[in-house]
């Protein structure tokens, strides 16, 4: 029976969710939680907050399943990325500036203490500079460097064409290159 749920595509699961199926909802959540969490984490830089935002996004879908309209929304993931991005941006507007966690990742065994400190500083600065980018450039960057999303899907999620997306990425990278000169 479990195999049956795994074989269903997202659209089929959503149709069942609209009929009130908890099993279909469970399958959809298990299938996509990690990828949306990753996106949310890149925005908020905090595990608990990212988890809360993802939970909120999925529960909104459960409570209002009619918001998903297959004839209007091309693909579930593209549509849901937009929802998650909007929730993250709303959160950031309320909580600005983004507070970076003091707890940075532990040292890699292969690197020296100096290398580790350097890498941590580099990562901190990168996150700080990404957080300071204009909203659309930041969203383009977060979506494009997500390995599970093609550039075309990222453009659809943002509601722009591919060229506009590439232009946003280019501007974001130019700004980051200037601001991170010391580390590049």
């Amino acid at each position, binding site marked *: 029976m479990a195999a049956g749920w795994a074989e269903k595509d997202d659209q089929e699961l959503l149709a069942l969710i609209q009929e*009130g199926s*908890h099993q279909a*909802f*469970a399958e959809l*959540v*298990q299938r996509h*939680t*990690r990828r949306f*969490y*990753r996106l949310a*984490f*890149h925005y908020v*830089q905090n*595990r608990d907050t*990212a*988890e809360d935002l*993802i*939970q909120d996004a*999925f*529960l909104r879908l*459960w*409570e*209002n*399943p*009619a918001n998903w309209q297959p004839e209007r929304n091309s693909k579930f993931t593209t549509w849901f990325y937009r929802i998650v991005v909007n929730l993250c941006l709303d959160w950031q507007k309320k909580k600005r500036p983004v507070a970076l*966690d003091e707890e*940075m*990742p532990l040292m890699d065994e292969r690197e020296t203490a100096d290398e580790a400190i350097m890498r941590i500083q*580099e*990562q901190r600065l*990168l*996150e700080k500079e990404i957080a300071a980018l204009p909203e659309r450039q930041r969203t383009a*960057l977060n979506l494009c*460097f997500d*390995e599970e999303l093609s550039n075309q899907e990222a453009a659809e999620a943002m509601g722009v064409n591919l060229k506009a997306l590439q232009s946003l990425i280019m501007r974001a*990278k130019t700004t*980051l*290159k200037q601001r*991170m000169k010391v*580390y*590049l």
Partner: protein
Amino acid sequence: MSDKQDDKLDAMLRSRRLEGASPDLAQRIILRAQSLPQNRRISPWQWIRQLFAEFHLPKPAYVVASALVLGIIVGASTPDTTVPRDEEPASVQSFLYADEIPL
């Protein structure tokens, strides 16, 4: 030099810090949803769309052709009771002239 910078920046963007999610995150969401009712309220526009969807014919040409064939079959197999029989005019006449005294 610029290419090197681009590559380095791309590498940094690909290896951004990511703290893994709790292993039970999905389960927590699923359990939470079980205690929440679904909001089935729909807008008037959605209601109209659903109403029209009820009458939507997936393959109209096939439906019309099937209905036509079915109609012909039913029509051909039903006994013909609409054409008046010979006795009927007589019975109507006897009804019309029922008051007349037979000679």
